[in-house]
Structure formats: C-alpha cells, structure tokens
C-alpha cells in the first residue's frame, strides 16, 4: 500500500513562509491499497487539495469511491470535507466511519457544520455525492483487500477519539491522534494496537519540556516511547503545533534522532510533511 500526507498541522492552519516545507494544512492522510482502494484518515483542510488531486481521476466523472475514517470531530479533523469538487459531484460515493457523540450522531455533527449559518452548502442533504455514515466500532472491517481496525483510545467529554490501523497482508499503518496516556491501561492498549506496524503516525505537538497547557495531547517523547515499545519500524510525528516553524521541526527531529542513535534504537524518526508519499 501507499501512504500520502495531505495535512500534518494540528489545531489550525498555518499559512506563512516559515511553514512551507512541512505545510500548513490540518490533519489528512491518504492510504491507497494495491487494488486501488482509497482510504482517507481525517478530513482537515488537507482534504481540499487531496480532493483536487482525486478530481483528476474517476471522481471527475462521478465514478469514484472513497472511504473516510474520522478519529473525532474537532475542527482540525473534519472541516475540509465540504470544499473539494468530488464531494459535490453526483455519482461519487463516500463511506464515512467515525464516532457518534453524546449530542448526536456523526451524521448530525456533519449536518451541523454544513448548516446555513456556517456554510453555503445548507446541510448534508445538498452534498451531491452519495454518502453514508457508519458509527465506528472495534469490529474489524474490509475495504477491498485492506483490513481496518479501530480502537477508542481517549475519551473527551462528549465523544471518544478513535485510533485506526490499516493492514494489507502483513503490512500495517497505525494512526493515533489527540490521545492522553493518563494510565497504564490506555498505554498498554496503544502498544498492542500499534504492535509491529511498519508506520506509526502519532500526534506530537509539544515536548515534555515545553510549558504549555495540557490540550489533551501526549508529548513527542510519548510517541517515541510508544513506537519503541510497540516495535514500530518508522514513526512520523504529526499534528504539529501551529507555532512550530519548519526550522524548529528540523531541529526537533535532529534532537530526537540523536537521542535514538545514542541509545542504539533502530526506530526511524521523521516529522510528517505535506505531500510526502511513501510505500509501505
């Protein structure tokens, strides 16, 4: 399978010259199976340009099929959805998995962000593509030859935040964001879920020595320790803080690569960058 980053920023978009190399769009990752399956994990603003690229293919003619895996419904993970042309092209099919919340279903949440007070779309009913919502569960499911596993790792006041694992044969990509490792139980679940993956994408907006308020996120060091314990091959730091410039991300990666080298760990460490395309 292939993987491509379309948005790697957390919280809010970061336009500006100092963010060009890693990119300013919020969370969005594309996973393509060998048989042409298309899975998108989170639809932050990165989904806008991903949509433009997909519109060069069968989606232009209303013959595209896309599976969306949504971790949770905070702005930086969903607000890109209504912008791409493919979403407004009849015939295209969107299958959307994600969490319901205590205030309503996933579908109702999407309908709300498209309501006329927030969006000229005037609600989900006016999205041209055929779409269906499926509350995500821990039951694995298939998208073509790809196996998708999901796990509710963290709990917010009104909804859980899910992690996803996409497998093709013995290859696996794991996506974990907005998690708080508040106890061993959550930590052990995460280790088991990421176990043996070729690639772990993990939110890591801040380091332990940065004095920021707890926004409900694990730190860079947590991501690295998790990747080591779960024997992951390659870790991508993700959901970068809006204040983190390209040069600062370079320095951050260099610092932790040096630590890994000095302790003899084989883990490959990178910061996710918009546009980066990988074979898994």
């Amino acid at each position, binding site marked *: 399978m292939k993987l491509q980053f379309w948005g790697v920023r957390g919280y*809010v978009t970061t336009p*500006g010259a100092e963010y060009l190399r890693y990119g300013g769009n919020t969370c969005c990752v594309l996973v393509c199976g060998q048989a042409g399956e298309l899975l998108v994990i989170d639809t932050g603003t990165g989904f806008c340009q991903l949509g433009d690229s997909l519109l060069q293919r069968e989606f232009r003619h209303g013959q595209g099929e896309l599976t969306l895996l949504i971790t949770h419904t905070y*702005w930086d993970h969903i607000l890109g959805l209504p*912008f791409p042309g493919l979403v407004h092209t009849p015939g295209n099919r969107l299958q959307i998995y994600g969490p319901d*919340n205590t205030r309503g279903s996933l579908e109702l949440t999407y309908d709300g962000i498209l309501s006329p007070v*927030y969006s000229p779309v005037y609600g989900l009913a006016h999205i041209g593509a055929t779409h269906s919502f499926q509350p995500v569960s821990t039951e694995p499911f298939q998208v073509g030859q790809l196996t998708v596993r999901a796990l509710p790792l963290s709990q917010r006041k009104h909804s859980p935040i899910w992690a996803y694992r996409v497998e093709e044969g013995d290859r696996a990509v794991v996506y974990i964001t907005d998690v708080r490792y508040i106890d061993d139980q959550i930590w052990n679940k995460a280790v088991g879920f990421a176990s043996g993956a070729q690639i772990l994408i993990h939110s890591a907006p801040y380091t332990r020595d940065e004095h920021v308020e707890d926004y409900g996120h694990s730190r860079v060091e947590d991501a690295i320790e998790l990747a080591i314990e779960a024997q992951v091959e390659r870790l991508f730091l993700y959901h970068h803080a809006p204040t983190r410039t390209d040069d600062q991300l370079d320095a951050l990666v260099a610092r932790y690569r040096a630590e890994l080298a000095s302790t003899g760990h084989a883990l490959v460490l990178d910061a996710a960058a918009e546009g980066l395309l990988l074979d898994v």
Partner: protein
Amino acid sequence: MRHLGDALSAEAPPPAQIDLLITHTHWDHIIGFPFFAPIYQPECSLEIYGLRRTQSSLRATIANALSDPLLPVALEDLRATLRFHEIHEGLCFELGPVRVRAARANHPYRALAYRLETDEASLVFIPDTGPFHTVLFGDERVDWTGEPQQSSHDELRELAEMRERIIDLARDADWMLYDSQFTDEQYARFPHWGHSTPSQAREIAEAAGVRELLLFHHDPHRADDEIDQLVAAQRAVARPGLRVHAAYEGMLLRKQKDER
C-alpha cells in the same frame, strides 16, 4: 486571526478592549476565533458585532461552533469578557473615533458589509457578495440548475436597491476591500455561491468613486502569479484615479500625509 492576536497580545500594554465586526459566520470568517490569544486574557474585553437573525443568536452560533463535539472551548470559560451585539443592515454606530455603518451584502443566508470612517480616512469591507443582477440571496438556499433563472420583478428591484446601498456605503472611500473570488468562467458555473469577479468589484469601485480597490477573498486555487495577472488586467481598464491592488497577508494600509 491567530497571528493578529499574538501581535496584539505582545503590545505593551495589550489592548483592554477589542471590537470584532463579523460580516457573517461561515467557517472562513470565524475559524481563527478560538486561536485569538486575547480571548484568554482576563483584562481584555471583546465587543462582538454581527448580524441579527431570527433563527439563532450570534452568541449561540459562536458558542456552538466552539463547543463539543467540535472543539472543547466553552464561551463561559473564556477569561476575557465577551459581549455580543446583534445589529442589522443600515445601522450606524460609533466605536471611539470610528464611525461604523453596516449594509447588506448579496451572499447566501445574508451577510453584512461594513464602512469604517474617521476624520482622516475611510475603509469599506465587503468580503463576500455576489453581483446584483441575477441571484438574490436571502434566508433560503438558492438552487442552481445550470441555467439562468428568471428573477421576479420584486427580486430585481431588491437587487437594484441593495446595489445602490452598497455603492452608497463605499462612496468616496479611501480603500475598499471587495470580494474578487471568481473568474468570469467560475461565476458562470457557480452564481449561487454568492461571490464576485474582479471586474464586478471594479465596477462597484468606479460607481462609488473609491480611491483604491483591494481585491480580496481570493479563491483557494488562485496562485500568486494569477492574482498578479488579475490585478494587471483590472488596472488596464480601470477608470483614471482608481488604484487597484490585491490584498495580501501582512499588508498595511496607511494614508500618506499629503493625501489627507
């Protein structure tokens, strides 16, 4: 708005009061709000102005956008003092030395346009509006079948009146920021989205006697070089005395002394 908030917070002392004028609450006009540092500062008061609607209050619209399951921010937990002021088109009010006027723009679910004026200068802000000759936007969704629809006599009259009020709002302004999102070809395909083209912006600027037109609300697909070309094309046909620029991040508008 994140960068603006950081810059304001770095001032010594930071501003004690900030007035926010909201044209409408589509996502691209409110998404910076929770990342605006002054809302977390107890010594700051925010006066928030926006369109009065019968369907929902301005406060509820902002509060719902910021709270679970969309974000974890509760308005009542913000440290700044927030006051919401629901206003209507045609309203004139004063914010210190600044005289403010609001008018209706032609945009889905209605939006406002603002004129800000001091004794020294005037600026008009019309970020989202369609032109005033075909589609009339109100509270209902306008469906587009791909064919121009025949507007009723009443609709055409309302559009003409709205245009006159927008021109009146912009009359002799030093600067006008105006919706220029669409190319002519885009407008022909998506007239129901409520955006204008650079030539439609220029026509309003010329009718109102504006001194400088700033093309604004650039389409997400419009690259820097393309925006340069749009500006050049409008300059080539602009009436003498009208300057044309494209707004860009970081741009500072300041009236030269000899212009006053």
